């Protein structure tokens, strides 16, 4: 059972790390816009492949 001498402090340390990550994420604004980023990944940019060449050139510039 002596293993708990290292297990409990170890787990507590990991817990602290997670709190740290959570605080970092909030500070970085990861939770600011839940909807927008969820849909942004679905609205991919395949459109450009379908465009006429002249439009594409304009975009490329």
């Amino acid at each position: 059972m002596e293993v708990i001498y290292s297990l409990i402090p170890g787990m507590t340390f990991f817990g602290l790390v997670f709190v740290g990550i959570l605080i970092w994420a909030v500070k970085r604004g990861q939770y600011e816009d839940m909807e927008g980023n969820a849909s942004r990944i679905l609205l991919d940019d395949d459109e450009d492949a379908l465009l006429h060449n002249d439009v594409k050139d304009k975009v490329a510039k």
Partner: protein
Amino acid sequence: MVTLSSSENDTPQPAGCFHCGLPIDVDVDYHQLLDGSQRNFCCFACQSVCAAIYDAGLQGYYQRTPQGVLLAPPPTPPKDIEMYDLDEVQQDFVSCQGELRETHLLVEGIHCAACVWLIERGMMRTKGVESANVNLAGKRLHLRWDNSRVKLSNIINILSKIGYAGVPYDPEAAEGSMKRTNRAMLFRLFFAAFAMMNLNLIAIALYSGADRGQFVGFFHWMAFALATPALLYSGYPFFKGAWSGLRNASLTMDLPIAIGLTVTYSYSLYVTLTGSGQVYFDTVTNLTFVILIGRYLEGMFRHQAVAATNRLMDLQPRVATVLTDGVEKMTSVRAVGVGDMVLVKPGSNIPMDGLVREGSSSVDESMLSGESMHVKKHIGDRVAAGTLNGSGALVVEVQAASADSTLSKIIRLVEEAQSSKAPIQRLSDSIVPWFVLVTLILASITFYLWSDNFEMALMAATSVLIITCPCALGMATPMSIAVASGLGAKHGILVKNGVVLETLSKVTHFVFDKTGTLTEGKMRVDQVIVASGCDETHSLALAAAVERYSEHSVARAVVAAAESRQLSYRNLSVLDFHATAGAGVEAMVEGMPVLLGTAEWLLRNAVTIEPALMLSLDELESQAKTCVHLAIDGQHRAVLVLGDTLRADAQALINTLRANGIGMTLLSGDRRLVAEAIARQLGGMEVIAEVLPQDKDRVIQQLQQRGECVAMVGDGVNDAPALIRADVGIALGSGTDVSVESADIVLMRNELDKVRLATLLSRRTLRTIKQNIGLSFVYNSIMVPLAIMGHVTPLVAAITMPVSSLLVIGNAARIRNLFKE
């Protein structure tokens, strides 16, 4: 993604506008050939936005719009955007790194994820834009651009071309310290949650037998290691609150919490050091966590309530063009002093409150009044900051500094509303110190009663301290009021002070102003009846010449009628204009005395009434038409017949009130027949007509003397005294600032249905407050005796106390569901 209208589909959708999907009026014809097919639009704005989107090759937007989502037509693009290029203006909201600049724009017109796509693509294709990031939830755009390659005004222009109105703003100023404190609280909460969860595991181990094994010392020290930072960091707000309370010689709710936490913690530390007995570190962290949750939720609701004000702040102009010795100079509004002359160009916002010194124009005051009709402004007229100048240039003498403008007053009003206290809350505020004192005394008595057994005495006393925590009592009212006023603000109901939330639910009688309240208040001339030998257009021109100096709704209608017939009434010379409130106006037009008003007033002014003109009057008035009589040179010459339409939601409101058994009175300065016709259309109610403005207040007084609790709904300046006199004054957002200031509740949008919602809201709030106070009294009267008797361990106390707080919070939060059904 589901397509709204695919490009293969060659026939234009007959259902609605290609851009926004709204139905197209039959008589409009906006169409454009796009990608080889004809598209129809509801308005020019939609057409040009759609064309711009196609030009930019961003038509994929229409494929990405979710099916069934109706877009709104594009918002009006912001005016005067060149000013955002000025460095001194930018310093308020832009962070610069040389030419690389960064700002946040508040964007109107974002509805769905497809808009995010469109804006980001559109922005990224603009030269000089480094990055563009749309926040869909907050309707904001974070923008980084190279100022040497593109100006901010160009970017905003591009944004308005694709159908969005962007205004720069400073997120710090808008949300500011509120957000920072809320966030600090959130971090404390995170840490408390972490410590609590770990400590609970240790506590379970201890309770299930580990307290007798070889590891007991280890568990105690681990618990100590977790509880100490939790107490110091997460529990800091309580100690701070208790200390500042003590310094101001008042007992706050934080004090028993702080004492309870300290005592429990110190005892547990003592046990840890001596190795005998039980530790209660878990109680310390549980308590901290749950009380913090309550505080955090409260802060969050407050924050949401404040968000409603942000839109108003946004209306505040930032720059003004000051005229000094004929030289124009653009400066920040803060630098403009009282007495300065400010030039207001056509189409721009009026920067300050002031008097017109030169020029004339029509001004859109819908921001203040909700009336979409423009108000004519001439030399000597008052203009308000934030309103939109129409077609003419004005030179305005500044009368009030920016911070004292009408708009600032409204913003302050909202803020006041959010911090005001209901009497019932003042009651609980004055109870709290006594409550705390009693708690401390009870705890001391408990300790004394159990003094033979030190551990038992300490535990029982701590239980009493923790369990009687008046949180539930202290939170009951503020939570309910905060939630209710936040919900109200979200639905366009501004509650100026919490008192009326109580009073409104007791109202037994509603008094309505007629014009502008039950009716649209937008009169129009339906008919001009002339005496034989008179010319209709000439009569109207003379009437308009006089009425253009009046601000009355009848006057506006007459002027509008003359305008629409393109009569040249403006070049008629008008002298000696005089208005008699509630009766009529008179002036000398081209040397002839012209009188315009009620028949009685004309009679009093020695005009012979023409019987031929009076024939159909009764019939017209019973159709709720208003008749204005015109006398030229002492001769009764014409009758102008004006009509006003009932508000669409008036009927529903009246029906609901009647079903609730609430008495109603229609109050009108108008003629009896007209007022009665309106009352009849609404299913009948008591009518008090032909009252002069100063009498409206007396009518309310009489009702009150009959023992009624009266609510007055009105809009105009003439309703202001009545609004003050009534137990609850409700001003429609059409608020001339006088009526807004006199009212207790302001309905921001001109919807009568909001009156009904406000009543519902107030009933619900009062019920919730009562429930909550009852709840916490029942809780305390059961738990305190148990704690004194020593039947409650601190652990149980720490569980039940937060549960009671959460019940109160949860109950208050339920108010938010009120309008959802």
